[in-house]
């Protein structure tokens, strides 16, 4: 369960103050697949990073599974990021020095909630996303889609309850995009909350709920219906 209360984020720039997020009040229930749609610069990524404990809001409150995220100290906040949240970005963000298996295992180094053997769990996750034969490959040996799938496997490593995805399909071709979206749907079906930010309206049909953003203001989109591609 994610709830925000009057969350604001403003940036001071040379040309004056910019309001990236204006009094956002949203509530996301457990197990929802929420898509946040908006043009570039609408503040959707800022919202996601505040929900994920990566950027401190200028004011307001974020409650994540009953905990006031921004009232915590760095230790506790890092713990929440590591154990309750999984992140997928547009860029895959795999470390070039580690192979696929090690990359997926990396989160356990910072925080270890899962009791399974890290290497076994990482192997199973990689097999699930179809990279069972690429365990020893290094990021520079993987394709764009494969990198994204490895990043998804990594986000699941510590078995988080919420997956936050920022334009995960932004740089992919249509087929790979569908493949990745299907993967998020499967993750959602496992009971995990998925919050995804995108500029692509067409992805709305994958989500259970769609929020739209414009100039820092969040609003609920009603009656979005579409057929799965």
């Amino acid at each position, binding site marked *: 369960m994610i709830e925000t209360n009057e969350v604001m984020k403003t940036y001071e720039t040379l040309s004056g103050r910019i309001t990236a997020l204006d009094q956002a009040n949203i509530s996301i229930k457990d197990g929802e697949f929420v898509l946040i749609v908006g043009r570039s610069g609408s503040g959707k990524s800022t919202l996601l990073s505040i929900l994920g404990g990566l950027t401190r809001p200028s004011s307001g409150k974020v409650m994540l599974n009953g905990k006031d995220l921004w009232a915590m100290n760095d230790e506790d906040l890092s713990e929440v*990021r590591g154990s309750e949240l999984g992140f997928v970005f547009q860029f895959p963000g795999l470390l070039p020095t580690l192979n696929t298996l090690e990359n997926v295992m990396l989160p356990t180094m*910072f925080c270890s909630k899962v009791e399974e053997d890290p290497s076994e769990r990482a192997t199973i996750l990689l097999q699930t996303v179809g990279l069972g034969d690429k365990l020893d490959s290094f990021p520079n040996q993987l394709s764009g889609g494969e990198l994204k799938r490895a990043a998804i496997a990594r986000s699941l490593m510590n078995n988080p309850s919420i997956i936050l995805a920022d334009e995960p399909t932004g740089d992919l071709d249509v087929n790979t995009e569908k493949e990745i979206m299907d993967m998020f749907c499967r993750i959602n079906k496992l009971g995990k909350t998925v919050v995804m930010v995108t500029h692509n309206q067409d992805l709305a049909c994958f989500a259970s709920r769609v929020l739209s953003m414009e100039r820092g203001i969040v609003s609920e989109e009603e009656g979005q219906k579409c057929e799965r591609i």
Partner: protein
Amino acid sequence: MAKLSYGQFLWRNLKRRSFRNVATVLTFAVVVCSVLIASFLTEGTSNSTRAGMTRLGADLLVVPQEYASNADAIIITGKPSTFFMNTTEMTKLQAVPGVQRVAPQTFIATLSASCCALPTQLIAFNSTMDFTVTPWLDQELGRPLEKDEVILGYQIKGTDVGQPIIFYGHQFKVAGILQPTGTGVDQSVFVRDSDAIVMARESVKVAWQPIEMNPGQISAILVQLEPGADVQQVSADIAAAAPEVSVITSNHLARKIDAQLASTVGALYLTAGAVTLISLPLIATVSTLVVNERRREIGLYRMMGAKKGFVFNALLAEALILAMVGALIGLVSAAAIVIIFNNTITVSLGIPFLWPGLDAVLLQTWWVMLLTVLLGALSALYPAMMAARSDPYESIRAGQK
């Protein structure tokens, strides 16, 4: 592999930045190497001077004024020479207040001994008056030196105890070998003056190049002071009583050796200082650049749950590893250089050298290494702090550009 270990994680990160690593490691290696060489040389030299003077066993060495530097050379580097002085000086010295005992010695530079290619310093001592070699004899042999017996300095070890050794056609027998001092004493041969005179007389007939040495001819007078006597005062009094002589004290020798060593040690410390001054800010700057370049990576760690402390520690650990590897390389090269080039250094600088005890060497090494590693940590402190403090999302985004 069940889990990615912290060590593996650090190693993989280090492996990627080979240019920075090599530069950092080399810097620390050069600093440690030059500081350690300077400190080994300084310690080894003063240790050697101490040992040499103790072996001579005299407070003062009085030599003819014009041969003062020859006498210095005999003691410091073992460069042999022959010179003589007037025996009457002895009586003058004995009258100087503060002088307890005097003993004459005669220095003869051999052309070539059977053991060695280069000339050796023969030191003939008077067995009745001597107080320098005799105590050693009592302690080590339990008896005085007998006819035609010699004691060898440590470096003339081609010949063992009990074996014959020939000087100027005269056969001697090795009675003992002295402990190493690193000074010229190691290259000297001690004989009784009565035997030396016989040898000189025979040399006219048997030797390729005979030596001139007559009874009563001496080269130097060793002086032992009364307990509590002031070395400076007595030296001045001797100079006044016998204007033809020069007084050599251990202080004088130490000063001379220091002067010979000063420019080399100075250059070494200067190198270390310059390298430190130039490189440390450079390393700090490079580390800061590297942290900037690694912002996304650091942001990703934070995203995956890494605490500020983890990021700070990991970056500091990388710097410490580099500093330690550098310091170790520096230590090994410094030790190798001083060991391999020991003779080259001491002969070309004209200094005596004797390795200080292992404990002293280890202590020096420990301090130099510790300081270097601290320096390494210092250079990484700011970048590591900056990295730990940066906003995770900002870092990830900055890397995206």
